[in-house]
């Protein structure tokens, strides 16, 4: 683990956020299996460090755009777990009144400009938000979360070029989790490091260990001042791994036996960070157990809230199309 010392509060917040994400996703999976969730969702289990580390390195009023695998980003940005869970359960109390679901959760008030069902679909939207930030002199930074697969979308290329020529206060944060659905990243790109894509636009690019939450946090923290000062956009590749299937409906025919288990056993971002915190005497195993219990309680409250929330009012289905 990178040893740049952080104050205890932030270290605890990082762990708590990762625990929230992990347990939220497990609850989603469980409730899907229980038949409480219709449709599908894409879980970020194993990728907690990227969301937590990157987002917590921002100021509260900074902005993010997210992806189809966006629960983690949303939680890290401070979304209300109840409203998130309710949305995924398709309830009227959800962030989108049940109209959006897992792939379209947005919480603009907390600076989350929205998940996106289209791979790479928010690449230019994030650039536009960064452009507005410059025009409005609000001094915000925008992080555009992307999967490795989305770097092969044309619009990312167009947006990255504009981010470069206009020096937008924008970080493209690519979570390389080894797969785009069933495709190994190595089969659809010919690069050692995906961050080499940055060279095509003359922007800064770096590849980091996405399962080391401190590496993620410190990398973003160190980059943000220059990005905020509009000294140039950045592409970060955070190497991580997708522990679960692509979606809740993935048979995983393509994945080598035991690969996921190996990653979880050896590189689980949460276990690694727990070890570090204990060894650095920031937290005791007991503290962590308590934190875990508090988190689970919050998640259960969110599930309860979702289950008890009313379904959307069908008579309002055609509302919200136009402002």
């Amino acid at each position: 683990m990178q040893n740049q010392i952080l104050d205890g509060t932030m270290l605890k917040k990082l762990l708590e956020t990762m625990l929230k994400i992990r347990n939220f996703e497990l609850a989603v999976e469980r409730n899907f299996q229980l038949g409480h969730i219709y449709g599908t969702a894409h879980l970020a289990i194993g990728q907690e460090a990227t969301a937590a580390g990157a987002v917590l390195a921002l100021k509260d009023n900074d902005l993010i755009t997210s992806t189809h695998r966006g629960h983690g980003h949303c939680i890290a940005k401070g979304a209300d777990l109840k409203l998130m869970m309710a949305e995924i359960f398709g309830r009227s109390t959800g962030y989108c009144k049940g109209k959006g679901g897992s792939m379209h959760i947005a919480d603009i008030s907390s600076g989350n400009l929205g998940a996106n069902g289209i791979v790479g679909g928010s690449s230019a939207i994030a650039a536009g938000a960064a452009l507005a930030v410059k025009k409005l002199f609000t001094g915000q930074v925008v992080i555009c979360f992307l999967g490795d697969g989305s770097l092969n979308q044309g619009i990312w290329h167009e947006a990255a070029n504009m981010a470069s020529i206009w020096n937008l206060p924008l970080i493209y944060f690519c979570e390389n989790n080894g797969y785009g659905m069933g495709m190994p990243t190595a089969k659809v790109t010919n690069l050692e490091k995906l961050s080499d894509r940055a060279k095509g636009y003359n922007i800064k690019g770096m590849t980091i260990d996405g399962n080391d939450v401190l590496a993620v946090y410190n990398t973003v923290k160190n980059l943000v001042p220059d990005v905020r000062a509009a000294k140039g956009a950045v592409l970060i590749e955070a190497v991580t791994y997708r522990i679960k299937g692509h979606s809740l409906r993935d048979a995983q025919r393509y994945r080598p036996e035991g690969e996921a288990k190996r990653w979880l056993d050896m590189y689980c971002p949460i276990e690694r960070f727990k070890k570090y915190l204990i060894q650095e005497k920031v937290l005791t195993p007991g503290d962590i157990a308590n934190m875990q219990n508090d988190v689970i309680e919050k998640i259960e409250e969110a599930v309860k809230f979702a289950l008890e929330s009313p379904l959307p009012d069908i008579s309002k289905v055609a509302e919200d199309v136009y402002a």
Partner: protein
Amino acid sequence: MREISYAEAVRECLLQEIKADDKIFMLGEDVGLYGGAFGVSIGLIGELGPEKIMDTPISEPGIVGVAIGAALLGMRPIVEMMFSDFLMLTVEQVGNQAAKMRYMFGGKAKVPMVIRTPGGGGIGIAAQHSQSIEGLFLGLPGLKIVMPSSAYDVKGLLASSISDDNPVMFFEHKLLYQTKQDVPQERYKIPIGVAEVKRQGSDITVVATSFMVQKSLKVAEKLAGEGISVEVVDPRTIKPLDIDLIASSVKKTGHAVLVEEACYTGGFTCFLAAEIGKNCFDWLDAPIERVTSLDCPIPYEHNLENAVIPGEDKIEKAIRKVLNR
């Protein structure tokens, strides 16, 4: 004959056609080991190899462009577009390049390719994965548009589409994949541009596409009990359109209900209604009713989704309204 599903019929057709002509190959996102998002191509890469079943990056316009270039050189590519919604990324390559090339080049080029893709809603994946956007391609000359509504039709129409020398947009439907029907093992073709009467009737003509054909047949069955005789016509290909068969049915019944899953504004039934109005003006005893989705994006929650997409209730209501019974 054996019963197989719509998805199996597509798979069998792909296997048979690719084996029969070495110019044919399929490409798309996760069509290989994954077997496609809806499992249509499960096993094909094993039987045909990665040269015939090509996995691609997530690059929809690029995939279509690659197919066009290969087709220009005499190959017969079949693109699987994982969700028809993603075709929105490819409108330029499909509509400006594939569709117009032959004309722009003065008839000196051929672009034999098929884009297979599942459309429609019903499985709770919201606005960007549930659309019925076939109508978006109607206004782009040079394309043919096919919408099979059954396992039997999908095999025969796909075979015809693959052997067609023009770019063909081939719209499957998520909720049809598991529907079963007797399907011949051997290869066969159903001609493009020929509609079919799926059920004979005398009181009213219901023209429906894709999954809506199945819903309309259920309604027809139910109303038969009341002595309402509904004729259900499936255009099967919406471009070219077999207006003759449709018009003769409407002239016979004097009443028409048009059913599609696309929105009220801008879908195929708008064109169809215009054509029927023009061809059957003196035969229509009542205004044509169009049963469509509401003019709003497809919502996530299941009941909301069912409130947007036309159900049997709405089809029945429209029939009763037109017949005034």
